[in-house]
Every structure is written in structure tokens, then in C-alpha cells.
């Protein structure tokens, strides 16, 4: 099957992301990559737990002082929903419905951007209201590194999805770009899963104390 062959919904394969050897390789390789990313975030979580509330003096804000549930809950909802919309996008990708896929991806991107906006507001808030900075304490360093790495992943994921949407806007789906869309969505799910852990470990456990 040539990569740029034109398809109809009837001839479009069941798993377009794995229909070519390149697609299969990318699919598997990306899962391995996510395995490595998991270890990366596990290391960051371990560091955060080790340095949580580890501040030079009592004047520095601790986790229990900082976090507020409503904002974080909103962020969680935004990201969870965006994960769901990317599932819809992939559903349409598998049905060879390019237009709907693009629409759902667009919604995903909007939700992701909203999440990012909340995060920027949140960091700004901590920074100015609580003097909780990257350079103010080990706790601050560990917090901003963990949550910031996640935020960096969100930025990269959004850029990736946007780039794919623009690049392929005119030419529709084929077996060359189907794996790309699929992997971007997989990446987006991974980001979402990491956030669930951040929500639990950093925010919920942080507020409990």
C-alpha cells in the first residue's frame, strides 16, 4: 500500500495507523517512548515528594497554603474533556472522516489552550501572591519542575496537533499522515494521564497536608 494512495471510507483500513510498516514501527516506537516518559515523570514525582514542603524557613509558603481546589478542578476537567474530544477525533480518523476529525481536534486544541491559560494564571498567582518561586526553595523548584514539565508537554502536544492540522488541511487523510494523527492523540492522552497523577499527588495530597 503506497503511502499517498487515495482512499474511500470503504477501502480505508481498519487500523490505518498500523497499515504500513512505517506506521507499525511508529506505533510501537511511540509506545516505548511513552514508557520512557513514564519513568521520567515517575522520577519527577519522586523528587517532588521528597522535597515537598521543604523550605528554608517558615515564612515560605507550603503546599497546604498554596493550592485551591476550584481552579485545579477546572483545569482537570478541561484536560479530561480534551482527552475525550481527541478520542472522538480518532474515531472519525478511523472512519476516514477528515472534516470531523479536524473539528474535534480543533476543540481539543481550544480546551488545551484553556488549560494552559489556567496554568499560567495559577503560576502567576503563586509567584506574586505567595512569593512561591522556582528559585525560592527546594519545594518551589520541585513543584515548578514537575508541573512545568507537564505544562511543557502540553505546549509541545498542542504545537504538534496544530502543525498536523495545518499541514494536512488541504490534502486529507492518507496512510502517511494517519499514524501521525494517531500518535499525536496518543501523546495527548498520556499528558492527560500524567495530569491525573499531578492532580492527585500534588494538589489533593497537598491540600490534605
Amino acid at each position, binding site marked *: 500500500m503506497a*503511502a*499517498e494512495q487515495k482512499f474511500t471510507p470503504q477501502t480505508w483500513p481498519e487500523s490505518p495507523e498500523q497499515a504500513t*510498516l512505517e506506521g*507499525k*514501527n511508529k506505533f*510501537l*516506537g511511540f509506545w*516505548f*517512548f511513552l*514508557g*520512557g*516518559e513514564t*519513568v*521520567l515523570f515517575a*522520577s*519527577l514525582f519522586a*523528587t517532588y515528594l*521528597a*522535597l515537598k514542603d*521543604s*523550605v*528554608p524557613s517558615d515564612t515560605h509558603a507550603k503546599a497546604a497554603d498554596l493550592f485551591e481546589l476550584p481552579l485545579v478542578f477546572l483545569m482537570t476537567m478541561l484536560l479530561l474533556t480534551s482527552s475525550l474530544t481527541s478520542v472522538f477525533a480518532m474515531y472519525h480518523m478511523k472512519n476516514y472522516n477528515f472534516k470531523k476529525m479536524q473539528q474535534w481536534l480543533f476543540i481539543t486544541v481550544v480546551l488545551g489552550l484553556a488549560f494552559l491559560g489556567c496554568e499560567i494564571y495559577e503560576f502567576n498567582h503563586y509567584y506574586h501572591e505567595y512569593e512561591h518561586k*522556582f*528559585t*525560592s*526553595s*527546594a*519545594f*518551589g*523548584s*520541585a513543584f515548578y*519542575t514537575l508541573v512545568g514539565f507537564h505544562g511543557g508537554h502540553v505546549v509541545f502536544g498542542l504545537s*504538534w496537533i496544530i*502543525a*498536523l492540522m495545518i*499541514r494536512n488541511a488541504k490534502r486529507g487523510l492518507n496512510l*502517511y499522515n494517519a499514524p*501521525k494523527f494517531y500518535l499525536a492523540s496518543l501523546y495527548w492522552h498520556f499528558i492527560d494521564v500524567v495530569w491525573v497523577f499531578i492532580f492527585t499527588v500534588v494538589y489533593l495530597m497537598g491540600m490534605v497536608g
Partner: protein
Amino acid sequence: MSTIAHTQKKGFAGTVWEYLTTVDHKKIAILYLLAGGFFFIVGGIEAMMIRIQLAVPNNDFVSAGLFNEIITMHGTTMIFLAAMPLLFAFMNAVMPLQIGARDVAFPFINALGFWLFFFGGLFLNLSWFLGGAPDAGWTSYASLSLASEGHGIDFYALGLQISGFGTLMGGINFLVTIINMRAPGMTYMRMPLFTWTTFVASALILFAFPPLTVGLFMLIFDRMFGSGFFDVSMGGNTIIWEHFFWIFGHPEVYILVLPAFGIFSEIFPTFARKRLFGYSSMVFATVLIGFLGFMVWAHHMFTTGLGPIANAIFAVATMAIAVPTGIKIFNWILTIWGGSIEFTVPMLYAVAFIPSFVMGGVTGVMQAAAPADYQFHDSYFIVAHFHYVIVGGIVLGLLGGAHFYWPLMFGTMLSEKLGKITFVLFLVGFHLTFFIQHFLGLMGMPRRVWTFLEGQGLETGNLISSIGAAFMALGIIVLLVNVVITQKNNVQVGRDPWKDGRTLEWALPSPTPYYNFKQLPLVRGLDAFWIEKLEGKTEMTPAEPIGDIHMPNNSFMPFVISLGLFIAAFGAMYHADEGKGWAIPVLIIGMLITFGAMLYRSIKDDHGYHIHKEELLDDAGKGGTH
């Protein structure tokens, strides 16, 4: 189309351009071999300086500060920039051929991995010329690495970070290649041991490098961006670095030694003309070693004060690794038992490896006994132990592998006579250098000392050790002469040069066609080529008719992406300095180059090209050179 792409540019510039843009695993292997070989020599020169300094007490051949830079760079260079890339050279050169693949799964990423490693290594070594090398030891323990002045540690952290990305990509690439690209009939339990060890080592890379990445990021942030992970006055904790370093560092030992085991597992059957004894238990032992390798990191930290419970658990877990390693040793001995041994140079290395490595292994078990390790730790006993493992295991594997696979990579055969001289010099020098160091350690000589005082009973041992090092150096010089002479004479040796090749890579014509197998081979069992030869055939039975072969295009982007990070690293490093306003722009420009190149790669379609059936038929008589 293919022929155009591959014959357009000739001459020296053309060759350079070809190698800068190549995505062919065989050429990338040569790049790894050249770069790794270069860094091996750099690391070797550093080693010689260490031994000259320590030859006599109170020596002042190098100053104290410089000595710390030399030991740091010796360790870092040998592990990250010599041993790993040299093993990657063999993995690239051999593994795809062993499983009957046309190339690796991601040729572009393969090239990217190399260039990242190369620029990372280059960056690290530029420290010598830009204000001083890192000086906190290859372990770079956090309190000292934060206290270290100048930019040495910055070079260490940024350089290793860049080359680490490359290694990680290489690991994923090999994993996918082995899972997805095996030839018809090449089941997992028919894969040659070198492929198996590459597989397990790649899995270890995948899970061991991220903790190092995180540790290095924290070091970079602490030193360059004002964070406080390891700064106790900000609430930080330096033990975190120790944990991350060794969660990476211990599996790293197996990442290095398993492929060396793999090389020996290929050499023994070949020159004993006998199949590997206990193949399935060898595979099992490899996987088990890889698994246990993650459970034992804290045995490097017995004296850190983790408490008796942690120490006892890690002591027992460490001892457990001796069991699968022992299984391997006995299987190798039983492989040559009853065989018909021909002492070629690769076989000499393999034979010498067994007792040498056993020595390193047993001292490892001794250190697993935590209370005894309170004495061994950070003494010359440890230095002796890990050199027995690394030189006795890995370097002997690399030297043996270089001789063994030279015909496969270059189509020529290294001189057996000079090879034997190298072997004798190197082996004698190795034992002379390191055996005595066990006793120096027991006699109370700490590790990483710049000098030692008279009257402590350490003079003789150190002098013997330094003499041994000179023998090793001579051996390597002879090897270099051997390489130059061999390549100058350029006598092509043809298919299956060792005559007893057993696995698929020897079934190919020499030099290997750039598309590897014209028709994917049909694998009918372990030692696939051997099976065919026993039936009187000289080639593999094809599994498919001749058809078009899909090939990837060369690309300059891997070089550009890596170059961008290389440039950005300078910006990150200098931005904290007074009066270096250019640093942040440089950081941004570097990152833009990298991300721009990635975007370009992502946006521009690259479908590769096809070699058409007719061309392959034309090539039939010529053996396909490129």
C-alpha cells in the same frame, strides 16, 4: 532514481556529505566506530596521565585540580563517549543483518541519535579549551558538583544531557527494529544472542536514562537557573542526586556489559564450531540480569547512611545477580567443551574474557556484603573491581568484536599477527594494572586521590600498576598500526571470511549491499546460515521473490537538529555569567534551529525511494557496492 541518489557525488567532499546525511545503519555504524574510537583514545590518554601521576608518591606531574578534571573526564568519556558508542557501532553494523532486516526501524532517528551523541561528546570535551573540565568525578555527587567553580560541571551536565537523548533514541530504535523487522522464520528464540543482548540492553536504556535525564536537569537548573534541588540552605537534598545517578548508573553497567556478552556469545560458537550451549538459559539469564539490574542501585550507597534495613535488602538483591551471571559463564565454558577451538584473535579475547570477568564478578559479590563494602567502598578495591568488569568484560568484548566484525564492516581482515601482539600486551598490561589495585584498596588507599604520601606501604603497588598501564597503551598503539596497515592494503576478503560464520550477517556478500538482503532470507532455525551451509548451500534460501525495495532518503536534518542543541547549550551555560548578554539570544537561536528543523522534518513529506527489481537483477553479478 536510487542510483542517481547514490552515485551523484563522488570524491572526498562527496564522501563527507554522504556521511553527514546518511541514514544507512552500516554507515552510521562506521560513524559510531570512528567517534567512539576517537574518544576511547582520548580517555586512554587521560588514563595514562592518571597512572603517571600516581606512579610515585608525592608526584607533581599534574596539579591537584587538573588531576580531578582528568579522572572525571576519563570516567565520563570512557563510559558515555567510548564504550556506549562503540557498542552502538556493533549493534548498528550487525544486529539488523543478524535478524535479516533491510535497515533499522527508524533510519532517520538512527542518524539523529548518532549526531546527538557526537555533539554532546564534542561539547563535553570542549570544556578542556574553555576554562576547565568537570572535576567532581564521573558520578558528580551534588554537593561537590554545586560547589565546583567555573563551567566544568555545566559542560558535564549539558553534554551528557544532549548525548543521553541520542542514546535513548538509539535504544527505542533497536527495540522496534528487533520486534518488527525480523525476517520470515526469525522467531524470538531463534535470534542470535547478540541480538538478544542488544534487545535487553535497549530496554534498559529506555528505563534507565530518564532518571539520569531528570537528575541532569536538576543539576542544570541548580547551577544555571537558581533552583534549589540539591542546595541544603534552600531545603534541598543531595542524596536525591545519588539515587537518580545510581538508578541510572547501575543498569548502565548492564547496558554496557550485556552487548559485550552478546559479542562473546557469537565468537565462542563460531571458533569452537559448536552451537551455543544452553541457548534458552542464556536468553533467560540475559533477561533476568536486565531485570535485577534495576533492583540493586543502592549498593553503590551502602555508606551513605540509608540504614541497616535498606542496606541488608540491597545486599541480598545484589548477590542474586551473581546467579544468572554464573549461568552464562558456565554455558560459555560448556560451549567450547567438546568443540574444535581455533585460536583466532577474536577467540583469544573471548577466552581471556572468561577468567578476567570472573575476577570482576566475584569481587562484585564480595562488595555486595554490605559490612565488608564499608571497607571496600571508595577505595582502590572498587577501582580494581570495576575495571575488571569494564575492561575485562566490555573492552575485551569491544576489541574482540572489532577484530571479529571488521570484515563485515569494512570487507577487510585485520592482521592476525599484529592482533595477537595487541592481545598479549593488552591482557598482560590489564592484569598488571588492576590486580594489584585490589590490595592497594585493602591497604587503605582511597579512590580518586591525586597523590599519596610516602611511608604508608603504597609505593610498590602503585608503581606496578603504572607499568601495567603502559603495556595496555602499547597494545592499543599496535592496534592502531594494524588498522592503518589493513585499510591501506585493502585486501577484500569476501563472504563468510571466518569460514565458520553461523548467523545471517555472514550470509551476505561482502561488502554488504546498501539494501542488505536482496530478498529477505528464510530462517529455519538457530544459527540460520550454519544450517544452510550444512546442507551444502552457500547462500540463504530466499523467503520472497525479487521485488522493489523501499529505501529511506538521506537527510541533513539530524545534523542540524543536534547542532541546534549544541548551540543552545552554550547559551544556557553562559547566561548566568556577568556581562554575557549574548547568551540568552544564543540559547533561543539554538532552540529555534532545533525545533525549526524538527518542524521542517515533520512538514516536508519524505517517502523515500524504491530500488526497482531490474536494478537489483543488474546488481546480481556485482555484489552491489555503495
